[in-house]
């Protein structure tokens, strides 16, 4: 044990000496590993970041919520089959609400796109959701200012609005949104609440941060016709464990509401976030594999660079190897010396790459959320170590099995 430690220590000194005496070459070789590790780490952190913010976004919406709509979100249902489905109306919603027993909250929802204005500040293409006072119970929203609009306000279609945090920030940089009159399209609405940041950037326009919420009656009154637009019914189960049961009940109730006969197919779809999640996971999975493959390739190229340089180095130092063997270096000592040399180069490259990746991810973090995880650090170190050993082995083995007589004679 002591001998192995001693040899490792001395081997490391010899390796460091060799690296130092060939600075330019070592640095250039290291660069391959630096780039490889940087891109691998950056890739994993970016994927992690996207993954985390998606999950966070989903949980802001509530993972136990079902969305009963005219169309399925995903799936193989043919377009022509669903094209002629009847709209889901507010009457359907009322009946559904009466008959469904297990959900803890049921709310209607319609959406539209409008520009929102306060004085000289405008945000275009804002995703507008119309609903009633129950809507907030189907979400996990928290508020920075004020409250969600009440049932009374929604029933009487009062011109009140709740702003997503991003919208509020844009219209009221000083944070004084409450009780201000803003314009949605051409109508005036009074701000009654501002949502806390939900951080669901990954949902894009569906991100609550970029939405405004108004009573559903207002939407039909000002922005779209009640008859030609289908609504969605958001149904929240009493607990995540109850989602499946609630979905079953919702299907039964909805069939009754729509008056379907036993042999007729459902003319509505019950959508779940799980489907969204699965879809997302499969997309992320593909990105992950493709990304790791491509970045892994750059690491592989770096490893080949190391191997190449180590072969050159072994050839160049043939005489030195002969001498070391002549004065008593064993095969395993020579093997260890060269493997240590390549591992040291790789490990240094790995550390530099890691630091670079952390700095870069801090910069990228300004635009999309990334997170360097502890595991990525450990993996980067282990991967660069393995790369070093793997790339160094073949050249080191060539060195170790050299015949001292021939090596000494080499010119």
């Amino acid at each position: 044990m002591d001998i192995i430690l001693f040899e490792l220590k001395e081997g490391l000194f010899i390796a460091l000496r060799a690296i130092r005496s060939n600075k330019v070459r070592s640095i250039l070789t290291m660069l391959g590993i630096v780039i490889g590790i940087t891109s691998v780490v950056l890739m994993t952190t970016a994927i992690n970041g996207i993954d985390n913010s998606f999950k966070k976004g989903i949980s802001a919406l509530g993972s136990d919520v079902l969305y009963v709509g005219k169309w399925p979100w995903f799936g193989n249902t043919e377009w022509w089959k669903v094209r002629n489905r009847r709209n889901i109306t507010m009457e359907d919603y009322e009946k559904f609400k009466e008959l469904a027993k297990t959900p803890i909250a049921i709310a209607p929802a319609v959406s539209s796109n409008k520009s929102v204005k306060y004085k000289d500040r405008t945000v275009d293409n804002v995703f507008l959701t119309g609903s009633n006072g129950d809507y907030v119970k189907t979400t996990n929203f928290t508020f920075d200012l004020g409250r969600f609009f009440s049932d009374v306000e929604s029933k009487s279609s009062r011109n009140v609005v709740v702003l997503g945090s991003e919208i509020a920030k844009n219209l009221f940089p000083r944070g004084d949104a409450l009780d201000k009159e803003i314009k949605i399209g051409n109508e005036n609405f009074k701000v009654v609440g501002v949502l806390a940041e939900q951080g669901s950037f990954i949902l894009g326009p569906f991100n609550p941060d970029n939405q405004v919420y108004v009573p559903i009656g207002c939407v039909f009154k000002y922005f779209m016709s009640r008859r030609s637009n289908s609504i969605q019914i958001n149904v929240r189960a009493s607990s995540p464990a109850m989602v499946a049961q609630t979905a079953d009940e919702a299907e039964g109730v909805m069939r009754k509401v729509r008056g379907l006969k036993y042999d007729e197919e459902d003319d509505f779809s019950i959508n779940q976030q799980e489907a969204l999640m699965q879809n997302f996971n499969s997309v992320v999975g593909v990105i992950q594999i493709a990304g790791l493959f491509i970045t892994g390739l750059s690491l592989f190229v770096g490893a080949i660079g190391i191997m190449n340089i180590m072969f050159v180095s072994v050839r160049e130092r043939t005489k030195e190897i002969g001498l070391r063997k002549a004065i008593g270096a064993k095969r395993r000592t020579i093997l260890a010396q060269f493997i240590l040399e390549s591992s040291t180069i790789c490990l240094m490259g790995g550390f530099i790459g890691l630091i670079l990746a952390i700095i870069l991810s801090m910069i990228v973090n300004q635009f999309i959320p990334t997170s360097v995880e502890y595991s990525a650090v450990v993996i980067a170190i282990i991967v660069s170590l393995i790369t070093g050993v793997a790339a160094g082995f073949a050249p080191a083995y060539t060195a170790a099995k050299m015949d001292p007589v021939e090596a000494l004679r080499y010119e």
Partner: protein
Amino acid sequence: MNIINIEHIAKIYEVGSEQVHALRDVSLKIDKNEYVAIMGPSGSGKSTLMNMLGCLDTPTSGKYDFTGQSVSEMTDNDLAKIRNKEIGFVFQTFNLLSRSNAIHNVELPLIYAGIASAERRERAEQALIDVGLKDRMDHKPNELSGGQRQRVAVARAIVTRPSIILADEPTGNLDSKTGEEIMILFNEIYEKGNTIILVTHEEYIAEHAARIVRLKDGLIESDKRVENRFIPKPRAAVV
């Protein structure tokens, strides 16, 4: 007791389909504190014999005992150990690590002997003092003259206190004056009780030894004591 006891060794190399008999049948005994020169023209098997003696190579047939251990049956690792502990090499081309300074070059065999760095340093310094390079310890080979480089190599050979010192044409790359200084150094080492084996093709170098073994065509041609060996006198100006 014999340090080296060689009985009927032969070495055959396969070159393509041909067999080359580098050594045919050589027997040789060398005692402690001998000063032996091995001579012979090129192709006589002198280098092969030196590689055998230095445990760099094993014979095809025959027996080689080194301080009572049978070298012919040793593994690579055992040979490395013997070379490290028992043999000090001095080469014609010095073979110093060009990027390391003198002291590190001398320390090298001690590293492979597993000696801790403090003791290593001390012994390497002493060896460099012994060869007269007290002021050159931190110099790299390219900052030293040829003679000084060979002194570093000699220091590296004696630092492990080996049983034999094996010098292969040690003056071959030096001018005659510097060569003579190295021979003075060898004489000092010999007189301290060490065993030296000198491989050379120069008659006047061989005459420094107390015994000359001549090889020809892979056989020993003659093996004679030198009646009045040439003992080099250190000149005051030199050291």
